[in-house]
């Protein structure tokens, strides 16, 4: 079997160019192995070969990210590698960011396996660990041997397309991908065991660490409602009767955009809910209960609002992944802005 071809990325310090005074060093590619690449070479034995090493100054990369990335991309591409490795960057912040950014770029744009390594508190870790395999290292180069011992086998596994184990097994930082498995004990017993430990002040391991939410700051209020164009967006699943877009009753993969021109009132005959997570009887009896088209039409006539936007957007917010919801919101808000909508009434169920 042919050897796995590897391209390795390191910074100016590990590339032997110099310290902080050389941090503005522009990307350069050299054939073969350099610096920490020697340790990888030893660990790969005959299975993989570092064909080229890219060296780039940390300040240069962080201050000229787009240019640096473009130049590095071309350098890597030329070698048609099977695998890409960056770092390890330990606790060097700018190096960590560069290593993470280049690893992510290679993985996404070249579609080849890629990994990096750094200390978990390196700012690059938080920025990129979700998207790439990032081995947890010590916070200084003292940990080089240990880092390579974890990175090399994981790199080979990735290159061979083998199944990757859990963060504990492989030594990478958790990317936040949740996968199911069958534990030894049932959930209730695990809960009681955990409580006994918690009560005794012993160490226990939660099965899910609480997520942090990205909160959205509300825009300032509208001063002139009488001239404002108002749109309706809902996760309550109100759709034209028959659910023409087949929006799922749970875990929606899409949203619908529906014309309400000339409609003053939604009824049982014209609309319904596709939502599978609430009692649909009352929403189906009168869909205005979920999206108040009737009241907004009255307000339009009374001059309290300028205009009700011609289209409303609807999806089902029931077990729907945040990633999907975010994607819908980006697309919907772009259209609303383009259509000159001033405000949105967002209803949920």
């Amino acid at each position, binding site marked *: 079997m042919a050897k796995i071809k590897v391209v390795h990325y390191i910074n100016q310090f590990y590339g032997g160019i110099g310290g902080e005074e050389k941090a503005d060093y522009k990307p350069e590619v050299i054939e073969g192995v350099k610096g920490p690449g020697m340790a990888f070479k030893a660990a790969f034995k005959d299975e993989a070969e570092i064909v080229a090493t890219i060296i780039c100054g940390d300040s240069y990369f962080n201050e000229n990210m787009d240019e640096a990335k473009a130049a590095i991309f071309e350098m890597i591409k030329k070698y048609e590698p099977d695998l890409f490795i960056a770092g390890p960057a330990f606790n060097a912040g700018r190096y960590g960011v560069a290593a993470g950014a280049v690893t992510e770029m290679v993985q996404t744009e070249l579609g080849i396996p890629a990994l990096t390594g750094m200390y978990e508190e390196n700012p690059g870790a938080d920025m990129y660990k979700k998207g790439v395999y990032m081995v947890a290292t010590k916070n200084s180069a003292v940990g080089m041997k240990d880092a390579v011992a974890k990175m090399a086998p994981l790199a080979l596994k990735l290159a061979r397309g083998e199944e990757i184990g859990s963060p504990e097994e492989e030594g990478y930082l958790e990317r936040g991908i949740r996968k199911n498995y069958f534990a030894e004990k049932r*959930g*209730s017993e695990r809960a009681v065991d955990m409580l006994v430990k918690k009560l005794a002040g012993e160490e226990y391991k939660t099965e899910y660490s*609480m997520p942090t939410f990205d909160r959205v700051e509300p825009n300032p209020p509208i001063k002139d409602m009488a001239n404002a164009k108002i749109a309706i967006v809902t996760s309550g699943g109100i759709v034209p009767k028959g659910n023409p877009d087949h929006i799922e009753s749970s875990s929606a993969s899409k949203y619908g955009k529906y014309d309400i021109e000339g409609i003053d009132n939604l009824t049982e005959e014209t609309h319904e809910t596709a939502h599978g997570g609430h009692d649909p009887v009352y929403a189906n009896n009168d869909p205005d209960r979920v999206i108040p088209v009737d009241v907004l039409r009255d307000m339009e006539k009374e001059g309290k609002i300028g205009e009700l936007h011609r289209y409303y957007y609807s999806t089902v917010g029931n077990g729907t992944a945040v990633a999907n919801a975010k994607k819908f919101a980006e697309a919907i808000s772009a259209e609303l802005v383009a259509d000159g909508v001033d405000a949105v009434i967002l209803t949920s169920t």
Partner: protein
Amino acid sequence: MRLELGKVLIKDVQFGDTTKLENGVLTVNKEELIDLILEDEHLASAELDIAKPGESVRITPVKDVVEPRVKVEGPGGVFPGILSKVDVVGSGKTNVLKGCTVMTTGKIVGFQEGIVDMTGPGADYTPFSETINLVLKCEPQEGLKQHEHEKAVRFAGFKAAAYIAETAKNLVPDEVEVYETDTLLEGIKKYPELPKVGYVQMLQTQGLLHDTYVYGVDAKQIVPTIMYPTECMDGAIVSGNCVSACDKNTTYHHLNNPVVHDLYKQHGKTLNFVGVIITNENVYLADKERSSNMSAKLAEYLGLDGAVVSQEGFGNPDTDLIMNTKKLEAKGIKTVIITDEYAGRDGASQSLADADPSANAVVTGGNANEVIVLPKMDKVIGSLDYVDIIAGGFDGSLAEDGTITVEIQAITGATNEVGFNKMSTKGF
């Protein structure tokens, strides 16, 4: 309160001329049971079938699963306030037909009923692939409104279970388990050194196919209250919900609540299990505030040091879960919560709709969005007509060859949040 639970082990279920239970073999007179079910004028037809572990059988849309139990001694009868008078249950003797269930199916009520496969990969996700299921397929009278339809089928399940369970009333059980809870003060006197632990059970109460009943009362209408742990074993709590069937408690789950059983296992050893606080998950904010205030207050009043909190459902009830947890922890009561996750099909999204740092001890029943391919089964009990529209299904879920691709949220009991299953989730 002391309950002797007598298990009559069921080896087989068959149809025959007389309904009887002999040597572990349950025989059911089909006509007699169907006549009983059709006494309800809301139902147009009823059919019975049997599904056994390992058979190539798919049952859908599954509404409820009920374990047949009968009161042998002591006050009241099973399903108090529903089939029996509202006596306080949970003491005396109760016999259980262990290893079989009554499972209800028939025309869909909402979008929400589940799938049970008796073999294949789907069978690993539902506990009901391991029981012999007497499947009752009920069809409603034309024009019957959804709420009445749901109620009629719910009652049909209870009636059928009670009818079958009568056969075990005078039998000597194969195994007997005893569960006993002292009054609060006696228990504390008996185990002065042990931490006082309670179980806060959250009940799904959001409307049609989302309801739970306590002694016959719609749990939307209750304020949190205290129960002896054995009360649920006699059917004091029953299910009226199966929406996103993976994490809803069937009546079977309530009767066999594993948190209750596992707390009893530690009772008198590592902890003093003093009782259960039941609370609800209503849709209005004021209700959520009131109920979480009340459950935390009751927990404080009982002097709890710790509590297991189990959720039912996801999304909206995540707010109830976090309110309960925050308020308990704020009173110095240590909590462990049982929930499940909706992290997206790729597992990359955040799993809960609400969060708080005080919820630092979590058990998860799994990511309900994970996709599974269920191969065609030789026989379908119920109907495949609804597979694309039930929660967890999507356009094209049902392939022409009978294969079904769905999220596991469509499988009855898959990510159960009273911790019935072994499934969990790891971060990768």
